């Protein structure tokens, strides 16, 4: 369990983490999602005491990380897979870490096998590929058989096989009752791994909810096309529908179920020729959520919400006749 309370970190005048509070619970995979520079790594570094908070507190398994007698058995951390002396072998690196806690040598071999480092464990880390470095970082995080696992961008640089492996590992660790906290800037990755999401942008928490709830966006949205928009608007009066027009014949209806919209149209004899319940991809929700929170946006590309995510797949590809 990771508890974060009113956590704030400023560098000079710049606020990297802004009054952040959330709890990461055991038994599920919690994703920490946000654009680059949103404050994900800073939050994780604050949790394990590599930096000190300007304000607020963090606790892991009930205590500040620094106060644990066996930090590696409480929290396994992968923050920067390259934070290893390149001229040491992976085995020497892991052995030195293990020695600080009296973790037996057999456990070093276990994590070497578990992460698939294999024979590479006796080679110098400097020659490792990005993916092998990442596996070593995960091996180090698992060394103390920790209750809580914090992995910053764990799939970075992994090949597809490795990505699948990390996904399975995260879910398995959570199924054992451990707390698993993963960060990523890739929503697609989170959609496949996380049970719960904490979304951060410019140092502020934008959402903290089960992934299903974030995907549903809270309210039902339906795309409707009709020959008489004005009539359909009148028909929907009295419901709590939020209505937005698009194209020549489209309405985006937020609130009522599609069935309720159909009934209203039927009773007022309005012809409806499309009625599409919208399930938004996590990507759409994320883009909408963070559009104001991205620090650096690529200049030439169109804004992520243009055209609107609800305007239909064809509209988005610019393929409409």
């Amino acid at each position, binding site marked *: 369990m990771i508890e974060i309370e009113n956590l704030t970190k400023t560098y000079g005048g710049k606020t990297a983490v802004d009054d952040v509070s959330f709890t990461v619970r055991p038994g599920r995979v919690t994703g920490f999602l946000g654009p680059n520079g949103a404050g994900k790594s800073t939050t994780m570094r604050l949790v394990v005491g590599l930096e000190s908070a300007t304000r607020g507190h963090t606790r892991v398994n009930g205590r500040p990380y620094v106060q644990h007698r066996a*930090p590696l058995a409480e929290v396994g951390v992968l923050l920067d897979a390259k934070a290893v002396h390149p001229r040491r072998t992976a085995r*020497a690196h892991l052995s030195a870490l293990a020695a*600080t806690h009296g973790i037996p040598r057999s456990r070093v071999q276990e994590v070497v096998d578990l992460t698939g480092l294999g024979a590479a464990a006796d080679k110098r880390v400097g020659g490792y590929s990005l993916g092998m470095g990442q596996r070593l970082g995960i091996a180090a995080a698992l060394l103390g058989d920790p209750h809580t696992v914090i992995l910053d961008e764990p799939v970075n640089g992994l090949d597809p096989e490795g990505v699948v492996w990390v996904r399975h590992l995260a879910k398995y660790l959570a199924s054992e009752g451990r707390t698993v906290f993963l960060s990523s800037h890739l929503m697609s990755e989170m959609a496949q791994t996380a049970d719960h999401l904490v979304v951060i942008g410019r140092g502020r928490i934008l959402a903290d909810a089960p992934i299903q709830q974030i995907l549903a966006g809270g309210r039902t949205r339906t795309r409707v096309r009709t020959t008489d928009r004005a009539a359909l608007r009148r028909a929907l009066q009295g419901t709590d529908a939020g209505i937005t027009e698009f194209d020549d014949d489209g309405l985006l209806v937020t609130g009522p179920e599609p069935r309720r919209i159909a009934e209203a149209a039927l009773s007022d004899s309005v012809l409806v020729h499309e009625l599409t319940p919208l399930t938004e991809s996590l990507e759409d929700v994320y883009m909408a959520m963070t559009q104001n929170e991205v620090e650096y946006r690529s200049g030439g590309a169109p804004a992520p919400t243009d055209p609107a995510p609800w305007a239909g797949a064809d509209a988005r590809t610019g393929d409409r006749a």
Partner: protein
Amino acid sequence: MSTSTSTAPRPQTGAPDPAGPSRHASRVRLSFGRVLRSEWIKFRSLRSHWILLGVALVLSLGFAALSASSALTFIDFNEQAAQEQVDAMLDGRSPEELGLTEEDVQQQKDEFIAQSEQQMTEGSGLSLPDGMGFGEYMAMSSANGGLQLVVLLLGALAVLAIGSEYSTRSIQTTMTAVPRRTPVMLAKAVVLSAVTFGFGVLSALLSHLLVQPILAGGDLGYDLLQEAVLLNVLAVGVFYMITSWLGFGLGALLKSTTWGIVVLVVLLMVLEIVLFALSFEWLDDVKPYSPAAAGGQLTAMYQPSGAVLNHVESGLVYGAWGLVLVAAGVLVTRRRAL
């Protein structure tokens, strides 16, 4: 990277114990002894450390041999000069013509040698034990010939031990495992102290041994078991050990191997040259307390007659420099963002 780990739906975490993740929570925990062991593993698992020590040993022995042969050269030169003085005195005549025996001539020559050595001893301000000539002193000191150079290598080794943690960012991994940080710093200091002290004692012993056959050519061999030699062996160990404190403290303060070495060289060499060049009277009271002066005094075979600090005192002064820098390095490391 073909492994069998990826497709397994339930990857093993290596914890077969159904009781849960905390299977060895009772035994697995931090302790200073364990951190010390960890730092020793880290020290010995880097080849560059051993290469540096190897180079330092070769230089120690090489300079000792060179100094030993220059001691022989000095003796030869002195003897030649004395012979020339005797020849000048005889001025082509035989000793008998002046009413002298061969013994008288030899005695005269020995006197000339002794006079010249006496001048050398006085010139260097040394107070040598009764009956010890400058040649003998040179012979005994020759084992320390490489000291001033080798000490920089060992200081650099200590800077590197902490500086490389910053340059490779492995300091983050290290301090995440030991979030209180101070035990890591102390353990590193202990490992460096043990390595540099051990190296100093070993290299000094080997150097004193190595110069014996060379000095034997000039009949300048000396007893290895005498107090002055044994104390010198110990002093070299202490000198290197304290220098490792200086290097380690500077490396920790500056977070950089390069800058750490630069400032170390300034402290041990440049500062000394500047102090030597400045001739303010009030500075004379300060000079013996500089790192280089105190360190040099600590390892001197015999003290100058007017020495302000004796061996132990200069060792304490040099040690204080080292402790202050280590303490500063530890305090700064405890607080900084890594």
